[in-house]
C-alpha cells in the first residue's frame, strides 16, 4: 500500500500546526511582510503578487483565556480562538489583516483585533454573498480593487497584472496537485488518512506556495501509481466544518473504527481547492470570476443562491466517491451550517445514505464518546452492506 513520506509530512505538519511560527521564520529568512487573511473566500494570490506571504489565520489549539472576556461563549471555536490570539498578541506577526467574508461571528472577532491592536491595518473587503444578481460581479470587482489598493498601501508596493498572473498560476498549480491527492485517495491508489489530507491542505493555506508545491511534487514522486487499491471497506465522506480544521484526533478516531475516508467537502479540504482562477484575461477580473465560479463548483451555505444547492452537490459527490455514508462535522454555533443542515439531512434520507452528525468544539471534544457513536454508525452501515461484503 502506498503511503506518504513521513519526513516530508513532518515538515508540512509543522507549518500546519504552528502557522505563526512558520510566518515568523519566513519573515526572518525572506525579509518580507506577512498578511493574515480570514476564511473562506479571500484570494491569497493578491497578497502573493505583492511579494508578501499570505497566511490563512487558523484556530489555535490552546484553551481560550483572554478571548473569553471579548467574545461570548456562544460563538464558534474559531472566532473565539481568533479573539483570544488577538488579545494575547499572537497575531502581531502579521503586518496587516484582511477579511472578505461577511460572517457575523467572524466580524466580531475581527473587530476584537481592531480593538486590541488599533495600530494594525485591518481591511474588510465585503464580497457580496448574494451570488445571483447582476450587480454582484461589479460589486465584487470593486471590492477586489479596493483590497488591492489597501494591500499596496500597507506594503508600499504595486501589484501589477503580470505579477498577479504569475501568482495565479502558482496557486492553480498547487491546487491541481492537491486535487491529484484527492483523486488518488478516491480511487484507492493511495492510502492517505483524513488527518494527513488535512495536513496537506492546511499547510497550503499557511506556507510559501512555491515551497509547498515542491513538497507536494516530492510526495507524489514517492508514490507508485500502479499500486493495488485497498480492500473493500466502509468508505466514508466527511462534510461541512467551515472556516477551520476539525481536530486531527477526531478524524483519527473515525478511521480507527476500520473505515476509510475517501472524500470530503470540508473547508480545510476539498472546498478550499475546488476551483482554479482563470489564467487568461485580466487577472483582477479573474479573481471575481473565481469567487463566483467556486460557489457553483462547491456550493457553500454562506452564499445565497438559487442556482445550485449544497445538498444536491453532496449527493452527487457521494456517487462520484462511491462513499457508503457521510459524517457531517459541524462546528458548534456555526449558523450557516445550522441553517442548511435540515436540507442536507432531507437529501441524505431521500438518497438512503447513512449519516451521522458530530458537533465539534474548541475545547472538550469527548473523543471516546465519539468513538462509540462512530463505531455504532459504521456497524449500521456494515449491516446494511452485509450481502455485498460477504
Amino acid at each position, binding site marked *: 500500500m502506498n503511503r506518504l513520506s513521513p519526513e516530508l509530512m513532518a515538515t508540512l505538519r509543522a507549518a500546519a500546526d504552528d502557522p505563526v511560527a512558520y510566518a515568523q521564520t519566513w519573515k526572518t529568512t525572506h525579509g518580507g511582510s506577512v498578511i493574515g487573511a480570514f476564511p473562506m473566500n479571500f484570494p491569497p494570490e493578491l497578497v502573493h503578487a505583492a511579494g508578501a506571504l499570505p497566511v490563512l489565520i487558523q484556530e489555535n489549539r490552546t484553551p481560550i483565556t483572554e478571548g473569553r*472576556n*471579548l*467574545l*461570548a461563549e*456562544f*460563538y464558534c471555536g474559531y472566532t473565539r480562538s481568533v479573539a483570544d490570539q488577538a488579545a494575547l498578541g499572537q497575531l502581531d506577526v502579521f503586518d496587516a489583516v484582511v477579511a472578505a467574508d*461577511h*460572517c*457575523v*461571528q467572524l*466580524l*466580531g472577532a475581527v*473587530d*476584537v483585533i*481592531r*480593538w486590541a491592536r488599533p495600530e494594525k491595518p485591518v*481591511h*474588510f473587503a*465585503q464580497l*457580496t*454573498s*448574494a451570488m*445571483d*444578481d*447582476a*450587480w*454582484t460581479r461589479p*460589486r465584487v470587482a470593486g471590492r477586489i480593487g*479596493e483590497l488591492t489598493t*489597501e494591500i499596496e498601501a500597507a506594503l508600499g508596493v504595486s501589484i501589477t497584472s503580470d505579477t498577479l498572473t504569475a501568482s495565479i498560476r502558482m496557486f492553480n498549480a498547487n491546487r491541481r496537485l492537491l486535487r491529484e491527492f484527492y483523486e488518488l485517495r478516491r480511487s484507492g491508489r493511495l492510502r492517505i488518512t483524513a488527518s494527513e489530507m488535512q495536513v496537506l491542505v492546511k499547510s497550503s493555506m499557511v506556507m510559501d506556495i512555491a515551497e509547498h508545491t515542491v513538497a507536494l511534487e516530492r510526495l507524489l514522486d514517492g508514490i507508485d501509481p500502479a499500486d493495488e487499491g485497498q480492500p473493500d471497506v466502509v468508505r466514508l465522506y466527511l462534510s461541512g466544518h467551515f472556516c477551520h480544521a476539525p481536530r486531527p484526533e477526531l478524524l483519527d478516531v473515525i478511521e480507527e473504527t476500520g473505515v476509510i475516508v475517501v472524500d470530503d467537502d470540508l473547508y480545510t479540504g476539498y472546498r478550499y481547492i475546488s476551483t482554479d482562477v482563470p489564467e487568461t484575461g485580466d487577472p483582477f477580473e479573474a479573481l471575481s470570476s473565481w469567487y463566483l465560479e467556486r460557489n457553483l463548483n462547491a456550493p457553500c*451555505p*454562506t452564499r*445565497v*443562491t*438559487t442556482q445550485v*444547492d449544497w445538498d444536491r452537490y453532496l449527493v452527487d459527490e457521494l456517487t462520484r466517491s462511491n462513499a457508503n455514508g457521510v459524517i457531517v462535522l459541524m462546528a*458548534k*454555533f456555526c*449558523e*450557516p451550517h*445550522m*441553517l*442548511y*443542515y*435540515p*436540507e442536507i*439531512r*432531507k437529501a441524505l434520507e431521500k438518497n438512503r445514505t447513512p449519516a451521522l452528525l458530530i458537533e465539534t468544539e474548541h475545547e472538550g471534544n469527548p473523543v471516546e464518546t465519539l468513538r462509540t457513536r462512530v463505531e455504532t454508525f459504521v456497524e449500521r452501515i456494515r449491516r446494511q452492506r452485509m450481502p455485498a461484503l460477504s
Partner: protein
Amino acid sequence: MTVAQPRKDKAHRLSSTRVGGKLVADYWENIFTAKERGKHVVWYNGAALNPLFHAAGLEWCHGEAFAARLAAQHLEGPAQAAGAEYGYINELCSYARTHLGCAVLTHQNSNRSETGVVGLTDQQELASKLPAPDFFVNGYAGCSTGQQWDAMTYRVFDRALPLFNVSIPMLWGNKPDAGYMRGEEWIEVGKYVEGQLRELVDFLEYQTGRPFDWDALSESMSYIKRASELRLEGMELCRQAPTPATYWDWVASIAPINFLPGNQDLVDYFAGVKAEIEQRIADGVSAVENERYRVYFDGIMNWNKLGFLTRKFAEYDVAVVAGRYTHESFWQEPQLIDVDNPLLGMAQHYLLCPLNHGLKNLQELLLRRLDEYAIDGIAFHSTRTCRAMTNPQSMLARAAEAERGVKSFFFEGDVADASFYNDELFDSRLEAMLEAIDVQRMRSAV
C-alpha cells in the same frame, strides 16, 4: 429553576401604546386573510421594505416581526417544535428557527400533507396562520444569518418561489474618514443600495403585473417621516429625570414604526404617545416610581420577558430610558427622507440598522446616548442566538467605563427562546451594578 416574580409593579407604562397594540393586532388579522382576498403576499426579513410593498399593492409578512409576536404572546413553542423536528438546532437564531418553523407549518398546511409534527394542535393555529408567500425578499443588514435565512425559507417551500436579495453592505469603517453618517463609505454604499431598490421595484412590477405606484410610495413615506419625527420628539422628552416614559414603552412602539402601513393612523399613534408623555411631564408623573438609576439597554429585545423585565427593573428603582434596539433604528434619521424622491433616504436607513456598524460607530453612538440621557449604567442583554447584536458588547462596556465611568452588567437571554434566560444571575448582576453606582456616587459626593 424557578423564576421569582417581582413583588410590586412600580412601572407606569404609557396607556397610549395600547392603541399601537390594537393596530398591530388588526394588521396581522388582515394578513391572515390575504389569500382569501386574492392578494399577492411577500415574505421578507430584515430592513423595513414595507413601504415598497405597500406601494406595489402587496400584503407583507415580516418574519422577525411575526416570530417576535409569537414569543411576546408565549406562543412560539409550536413553531419552534416544528422547526426542531425539521432539523434546526436550538443554537440557531431563535427568530429564524421560529419563523422557519412557521414556514414548515404553513407549507404543510398549503400542501395539506401529513406532517409528522407532533401534537400541540391548538397552539399551532397561530403559528401556522401565515398566508403562503408568492415570493420572498431579503434585505438584511449586518447579520449574515439574516441573509441566509430566506435562502432556507426558499428551500422549505421546495425551491419553487422567486427570491430577491437586497445586499446591504456593512458600515465597517475601512476608511479613516468613516463615522456615523459621514465619510466616503457612507456616501458610496447609500447609492449602491438605492440602485438595488430600483431593481426591487422592477421585480415587484414583474411579480404583480402592475406598474409601481411611485405616488403611493411618496405618500406612505411622508406619513412614516412624520411618525418618526413624533417618535423622536417623544424620545427626546425622556431625557429629563425622572423620565416620563421608558425604553419598554418604545419597545411597545417598535411594531408600528417597523412594519405598519404609512398612513394617518400611524401618525396619530405617535402623536398620541408624544401627547401622553407631554401630559405626564405637565402632571409630574414618572414612568418608574422613585427613579434612582437611569439605565441604557444594549441588546435585542427578549420578547418572552418583555413585561417581566419592565417590572423587574422598576422594582429596583431603575428607569431604563434608552437602548440601541429602539433608539438606533426604525427610521431614526427622518431628515434623510425626501418624500418626493425617497429611495436614497430609505436605502440609508436600511444601512443604519444597529447591527450594521463596526465597533467605532457603535462606540460613538453609545457615548452620545450616555450623555444625552444622563445614563448611570448599562444592561447588556447577551442575546444567546443573536451574535449580530452581541458582537461588540464586551468592548462597548469597556469603552463606557473608560470614557464616561459608566458601569454595566451582562445578563443572558434570547430574542425568542425563554430557555436561555437565568433569573438568579440577572438579579445578582443587576444588584452588583447598582451597588457599584452607589459607591461611585458616595465617592463623588465626598
